[in-house]
Every structure is written in C-alpha cells, then in structure tokens.
C-alpha cells in the first residue's frame, strides 16, 4: 500500500513537472523557464561518460566552479551508450534545465536531441568531443587533430627523423581516436623515413595496452624506436611491458594523467599533450552560463581549446597543479577560468 502511494506521488510529480516545462517552453522560447532569471539559481545538466580518467580529473574543479557561481549541476553518465545519452538529453529538456552540456559519445548520433533543445530554447553546448550538429549553441573543443600531430612530431624529433614506431589507438570510431589518428597520419605522411611497425587499438586501457605491447615487442624485437600512444593510460601500459621486457623505449601520450606526468619527470615518457580537465570542464560551464545570459553568442561561443605539450622542462608546474597541490589549485580555478574566458587565452594556468 505504502509503495503504491509513493509511486502515484511520483507519477503526479512527474506529470506536473512535464506540464510545467511544456508551458514554459512554449511561452518563453527565448529564455529558459525563469524569465529574466539572471539572479535565479541556474540549473545545468551535463551528460558525460564517467569512465575516462580525463573527466574524473576535472570533476572537482567543475564542481568548484559551479559552487563558486551558485549553479545547480546535474551530472548523468551515459556509460558509453549513445542512445542512453540521447534519453538523458531528452530528460534534461523535459526537466526544463537552463542549459545542457554534452560530452558526446558519438559525434553524429544526437542531431535530433540537439534540435529539440534548440526548439525548447535551451542552449546546448558540446564540450571536449565533436558533435556534428548545426544546432549547438556553443562548444569547447580541444584540437585533437593538433594533439595527435604534436605527439607524432615530438616522437619523430626525439628519434632523429627516421626509425620505427608503433601506435596504440583508442577504440576505432571513437572521435578521440579518429581525430588524433588524423593528426598522427598527417605528420607521418610528411616523414617518409618513419616506418609504422604496428598500429592497433588497446581501447584506451592500461592492461590491454600492456599485453599488446608485450606481443609487439616479441614480434619486432629491438626494432621499435618509439611508442606513440593516443592516451596516457595506454602509454603507461606500454611502459609496463617495456619494463617487463627489460628494455628502454621512449613513449609519448596525451592527457597528462598523474602517472603520465610522473613518467615525464622520470624521463620514461618524452612528453604528453596535457588535456587539463580541471581547466577545460569549468571553462565549458563558464561558457554555458555566458551563453545562457546572452553575453557570448554566435561563432564566438565556439571555442577551440589549445592543449599544451608538456615536456620534462615544464612538467613541474603541472605536477604542482594537478597532483601535489591540486586542492589549492582548484580553489583558484573559478577565477582563472573567468579570466581566460574574457582574455581568450583559454588554457593559461598561471594565476
């Protein structure tokens, strides 16, 4: 009996919420459900794959930014499934949130939901990964092609312009993999003296990369001069296999995970392209708020986020920010991000 009451309350509540948002959606298409709601608490929905290290590294800073600006942030995890992500966006629209942030699972599958959000007058921004839709209100996209090109170039320079490399890739078809590989391939095409001995996916995973690299070490023996990994996790897995085989082969990665930065410090990684979630995710949130308030519109709301290439020379600063004094850094993030959004120097981490 008690259960039934609870259920019916829920149903009535849901129906009420639905009708309310439907009303506000039609009555006030230009803004959200709070007309002139600049002073009201903003509610922003975020749908993001929770499983990647990068997102996790940035979540605290994202929350810090939300707290600093009194924003109500709802985070949902589509668990790598694009249809789940589509439903989550639909859910946000029904809830009548003020803005939606999407870290897309796939770039081409959400057009309908993005269009729905636009029609409902809710700005939808894609953060961190590509989303091929004309209806997004803005975006913060790291240049993955450039990141791929940067690590390939760094490795080729490191081994002196000629030699043999192996490439560890993300899951085929994943936007990170596609774009980073595009950059890597572009640089490889300019360097005919570089031979790719093997190239395969290790699905962003450390354990899988360790096994794959062990097998490649068997297949190609001492011929491998360098490892280009499309993320740090796979680079670290490769490093483990290289250690187990008693060899020393340079590795380059992308992300700037704690362990990756430590590997740069010790000289086992030659470098990594730092994708600092603690800067990029709050920047996405700051931009979303600016778009909701009409402060940034049109093309200006589409930001290309330049990711720095970190080497042994400057790794100390990033270890300080991301590892050793992270809480202190996160406290400063809201101010840094607000400043960067104004200045346009988006990845600047200095205080």
């Amino acid at each position, binding site marked *: 009996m008690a259960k039934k009451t609870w259920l019916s309350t829920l149903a009535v509540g849901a129906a009420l919420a639905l009708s309310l948002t439907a009303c506000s959606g039609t009555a006030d298409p230009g803004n959200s459900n709070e007309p002139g709601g600049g002073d009201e608490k903003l509610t922003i929905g975020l749908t993001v794959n929770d499983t990647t290290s990068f997102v996790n590294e940035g979540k605290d800073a994202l929350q810090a930014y939300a707290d600093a600006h009194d924003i109500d942030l709802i985070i949902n995890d589509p668990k790598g499934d694009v249809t789940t992500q589509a439903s989550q966006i639909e859910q946000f629209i029904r809830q009548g949130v003020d803005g939606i942030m999407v870290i897309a699972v796939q770039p081409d599958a959400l057009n309908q939901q993005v269009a729905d959000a636009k029609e409902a007058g809710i700005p939808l921004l894609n953060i961190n990964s590509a989303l091929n839709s004309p209806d997004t209100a803005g975006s913060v996209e790291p240049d993955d092609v450039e990141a791929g090109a940067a690590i390939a170039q760094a490795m080729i320079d490191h081994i002196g312009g000629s030699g043999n490399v192996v490439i560890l890739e993300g899951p085929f078809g994943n936007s990170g993999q596609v774009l980073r590989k595009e950059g890597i391939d572009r640089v490889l095409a300019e360097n005919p003296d570089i031979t790719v001995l093997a190239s395969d996916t290790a699905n962003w995973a450390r*354990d899988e990369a*360790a*096994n794959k690299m062990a097998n490649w070490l068997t297949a190609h023996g001492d011929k491998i001069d360098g490892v280009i990994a499309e993320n740090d996790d796979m680079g670290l897995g490769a490093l483990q296999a290289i250690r187990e085989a008693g060899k020393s082969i340079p590795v380059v990665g992308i992300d700037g*995970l*704690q362990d990756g930065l430590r590997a740069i410090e010790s000289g086992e990684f030659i470098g990594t392209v730092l994708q600092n979630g603690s800067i990029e995710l709050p920047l996405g949130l700051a931009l979303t708020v600016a778009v909701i308030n009409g402060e940034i519109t049109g093309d200006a709301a589409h930001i290309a986020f330049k990711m720095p290439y970190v080497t042994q020379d400057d790794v100390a600063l990033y270890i300080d920010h991301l590892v050793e004094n992270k809480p202190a850094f996160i406290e400063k993030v809201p101010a840094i991000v607000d400043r960067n959004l104004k200045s346009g120097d988006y990845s600047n981490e200095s205080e």
Partner: protein
Amino acid sequence: MNAVNAPFDTPTTATRVRDFVIRRAMVLMMLIVIAAFAFANDNFFTTGNLQAVLIAAAPFALIAIGQTLVILTGGIDLSVGSIIALSSMVTAFVVKGNPELLWLAPLIGIVVGLVAGSISGLLVARDLVPPFIATLAIMTAASGMAYVVGNGSPISGLPAEYGLIANFTVLGLRPPVWLMIIGLVAFSIVMARTTFGLRVYAVGGNPQASRIAGVRNAPILYSVYALSGMLAGLSGVLLSSRVVSGLPNLGQGYELDAIAAVVIGGASLFGGRGTMWGTALGLLLIQTLNNGLDLLGVPAYWQSVIKGALIVFAVSLDVWASRRTSR
C-alpha cells in the same frame, strides 16, 4: 570428460571414442594454431613470448577456474569482471592511505571478492534469484562500487613496492603465472578426487537426483560462487599491481572471455559436464590466438571475429560428438 557418470559406469567404447574426439580435436587445433604462428613469425617460439602469453593468461585463468565451478553447477557468473575492478580499487585505496599495509594487499582483494561472491552465492543457494540475475546484479553493483571507492577517479601514485606483488620472478616465472599453474592443478585434483568435486558435478548434472542421494545442494552452490568471487578478487590485485594503480574500469568484459574459455573447453552451460583441463586448454587457445594474431598484425576487431568463430566451432564439435555417442 563425463565425470558424472565416470565413477558409476564403466566407460563404454562409445564414451571413449567421444572423449578421444573432443579432447584430441581441441589439442589438435591448439597444435595447428601454434604451428601456424611459429611458421608465420620467427619470434613466436621464444621463451620471452611464452612468458608474455602466460602473463596475459594468468588473470583470466583465475576467473576461468571459478567460472568452471559455477558453470558445472549449471549457473553462470557475470560478476567477475566488475569484482576485479572493485578489488583493484579497494586494494589501491587501502595501500595508498596506509603504505605499511602493503603486505595485506592480496588478502584485501581476496576478501573483497569473497564478500561479493558470497552475496551471489547466498542469493543463488537460497533459490531467491536465478544465477544470471544474481550475478548480473552484483556485476552492476560492484562496478558502481568501484567508482564510488575512488569517487569516480582511478587511484594512482601508489608506492613502487605495490608493483612488486605481480612483478618479481620466482624460478623464472612471475607470481600470477605461478598462481595460475597452482590453481589449475589444485582445482583439477579437487574436481577429480574429492567429495566436493563430485558434489559440484552432481548438483549441476541433476539437482533433483543429487538431493535424493543426500547431497545438500545449497552449501555447494554457495561455495562455488564464493570461490569464483575470491579468485576474481585475487585476479584484481594481480592486475592492479601490474599497472601499479587502481582502475575502476579494470577487468571490463573479462567475464565473457572466461565464459568463452570454459565453453571452448567443452563444458556444458547446463551443468554437470566439463573439466579444468578443458578450461585450461580453451584459455590457452584464446590467449595464444590473441598473442599470435598481434604478432601477425591482425587488428583487434578481426581478432574478436576469429574468437567468435572459434566458440561456435568448438561448441558445434562438442554437440556433434555428444549426438554421435547418444545414438
């Protein structure tokens, strides 16, 4: 092969033929695969590569042993991959906060796995939920818990000694490889020679008959899931030590590879039929394929296709052989 009948019937010629066909067919296939890879790549037949195959196989072997026990009772354990993740996270969490407890790490992982496995075991043994559902629930919950432990993040920056758990060598082999060998040998003996082994086969072969024969099914059912969870917990510690971190997505999908190994090894998903030896063979076949296809540069997705074909082939062979004898 047919260990339920083995102690009661004298094997007929037909059974012998069937045993021969199944066992030798898989062994033959393994030999063909090995010969083909050895022919295609000079580096295949090296001690270094053998090490690589065994190291990659070890974490799967531990969960495949547990999976064999569960499948012999007619159940299935979907939770082991997530238990690996949870065990790696809890162990890394404890060691990070208390580096002096490093020596406890394997024990922590085993206990985490035991607790998770015991919950599935209780649910199944008390006949509350079917195995598929019980372990699906634990799979989902354990995966969630793995993220809860690290607040969604992996745990890294562990003391270097943590990496030693899986990475030192004893008589030329690393601890995971030793544990795999000891586990497989020990459980083959347990299954073939002890009352416990016999009862596992009996519960899976015909639960009604085994009950009438005076076997209490519930404790057997409970213990196979608890063992499976324990072994998954241990596997999680070894994997996480290998990469010196706790990863909430570690072991993802491993349960399916373990089930594949058991099925390729000739076990019946309806229970009562299968051997540790078969599982070991199925496991090594999968791992040898992974390794050899990597050496030849075959992309990962083709490797999955080939593994799928292998499963169908192995099971068809098994079904075909069973029909031949029952006629």
